[in-house]
């Protein structure tokens, strides 16, 4: 099946508000336990106004606060048929999947979208932690592969936001195989010479960390996010010692040289815009003016990102149209 047939049916999601208004108007911060009015929590991008704790974000919300004007298009992804292994623990995986899909209105734990970020076209893949702990099975791995291919097709950077406990055990070995499959997605970005940025959010562990999530050209983490390979409890049981303070937190990883930066959610969009701009518009002259809708094609730019992908310098005459205009 050609994945493009799926792509031609993008759903426009002009973002208004989350359709499901919370039943409870107050949100309790899981860290300081303060009750915060939900509007205030939303306005602060789900960062506790009291203690700065970064709460987990639903995928929709993550996409909305990232893209210019909250406008993006998601692509349809294939989903797995009921239950590849006929896996049954205390519950059938097929039933678990059905219930979760109905509850969240999503097929699986990943969303892939494209849109503008600071006027530059980007492809973004976001994990839905609420969907079985954001676990990576066949559909999630496939989502990453397709996200990379869409990015290559659009000559756009790829930004991935993992939030995942790791592999989806209910898909057994097939979930383990998503580690190499997602790494291939990264390799396709690399070979196309396109930026691949990972924003590690709470939590990113297990097979997700040990594959695409640790291979970003740039690795950013949100403050306080738990990021690691083995679970803290497993490590404690193995070494029979208390773990050091802040172990496997974003700041700890920064100290140990595992990631490039820890960025507060309020500064994340600006940071990503700056990075993408620096990597895509390799010369200041490449910058494409941003129109009201963030769509440079409306401004006559022929190449969506305004950058010459061959790495050849763009002659001044050619790049003239791409320059910001004084008027």
């Amino acid at each position: 099946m050609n994945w493009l047939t799926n792509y031609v049916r993008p759903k426009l999601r002009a973002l208004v508000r989350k359709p499901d208004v919370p039943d409870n108007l107050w949100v309790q911060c899981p860290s300081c336990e303060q009750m915060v009015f939900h509007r205030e929590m939303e306005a602060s991008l789900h960062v506790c106004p009291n203690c700065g704790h970064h709460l987990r974000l639903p995928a929709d919300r993550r996409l909305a606060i990232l893209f210019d004007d909250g406008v993006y298009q998601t692509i349809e992804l294939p989903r797995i048929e009921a239950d590849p292994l006929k896996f049954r623990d205390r519950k059938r995986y097929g039933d678990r999947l059905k219930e979760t899909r109905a509850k969240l209105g999503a097929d699986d734990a990943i969303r892939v979208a494209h849109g503008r970020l600071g006027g530059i076209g980007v492809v973004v893949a976001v994990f839905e932690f609420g969907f079985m702990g954001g676990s990576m099975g066949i559909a999630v791995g496939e989502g990453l592969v397709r996200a990379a291919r869409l990015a290559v097709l659009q000559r756009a950077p790829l930004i991935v936001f993992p939030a995942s406990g790791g592999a989806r055990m209910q898909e057994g070995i097939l979930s383990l195989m998503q580690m190499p499959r997602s790494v291939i997605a990264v390799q396709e970005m690399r070979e196309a010479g396109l930026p691949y940025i990972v924003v590690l959010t709470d939590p990113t562990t297990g097979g997700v960390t040990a594959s695409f999530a640790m291979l970003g050209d740039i690795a950013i983490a949100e403050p306080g996010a738990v990021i690691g390979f083995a679970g803290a409890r497993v490590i404690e049981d193995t070494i029979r010692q208390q773990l050091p303070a802040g172990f496997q937190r974003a700041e700890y990883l920064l100290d140990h040289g595992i990631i490039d930066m820890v960025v507060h959610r309020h500064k994340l969009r600006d940071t990503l815009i700056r990075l993408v701009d620096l990597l895509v518009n390799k010369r200041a002259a490449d910058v494409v003016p941003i129109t009201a809708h963030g769509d440079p094609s409306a401004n006559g730019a022929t190449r969506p990102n305004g950058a010459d992908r061959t790495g050849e310098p763009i002659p001044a005459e050619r790049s003239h149209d791409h320059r910001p205009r004084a008027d």
Partner: protein
Amino acid sequence: MLSHLDFEQSIVELETKIEELRHLGDAANLKIAGEVSRLEARLDRLLRQTYAKLAPWQKVQVARHPRRPHCTDFISGLIEGFTPLAGDRAFADDEAIVGGLGRFRGLSVVVIGQEKGADTDSRVKHNFGMAKPEGYRKAQRLMAVAERFGLPVVTLVDTPGAYPGVGAEERGQAEAIARSIDVSLALRVPVVGTVIGEGGSGGAIALAAANSVLMLEHAIYSVISPEGCASILWRSGEHARDAAEALKLTAADLLHLKVIDEIVPEPVGAAHRDPATAIRHTGDAIEAALKPFLALDGPALKARRREKFLAIGSQFLI
């Protein structure tokens, strides 16, 4: 004394009886010789019957059998002039991963595998086959040597998983595994991986992103140990047997799922009863698997490997 598994009660009784008779009777005693050969035939039948229909949990036990041949046994049985190479050039030499240069059936190759150790001392030395970041980085370095000199890579997978420790996390265990998969998938030389015992999770796939993946008949390969899976999904490690069933971790299951390419048959009663034969069969299978890839050029080897992994599981997508 052969350590035995719980389902092997009657097998071990027979083996003990045969041993006793042999000890007791002299060669001239025809009566005893007749009895021994009668019992041996029975033992052979019983072993065949038992091992033909091992349940997944029994496979787990066999795959972890302490007498099962390990990586270093396969290397000494299959690789001439094996020359180990050490270290990640950054932090340490991790002996959970053994690797080096050698000649396999006439061909210079790079061999990389996980070694669990065979006795208390060697188990500690090899950290029970649980590699740390420096182990995976050593593997990457050896893969780079193979790439530079155009040598095929032969990997031998046998690990409970990557080591869960504070230092391992601090030195980037996840990155080390991810990078090993990355390096392996990008190689322009043939890579043949064989799960010889326990293919435990990310620690295993780090060495198994290969052109051809083989698995010994009684080996297991899984995203998580049955015990770990049981403690998470059943909230009790006592359900390991159920988890082993559910995970579909046997060679037959994995061949059916098209995750592996071939099953290497083990001798009657599994590899631990006749390591030499098991190792020889494995060598034959690796040689046969390697052959078609030797004719391909670098870009084709890399492309085929990636296509193979991209295709895995696609039959379940709609």
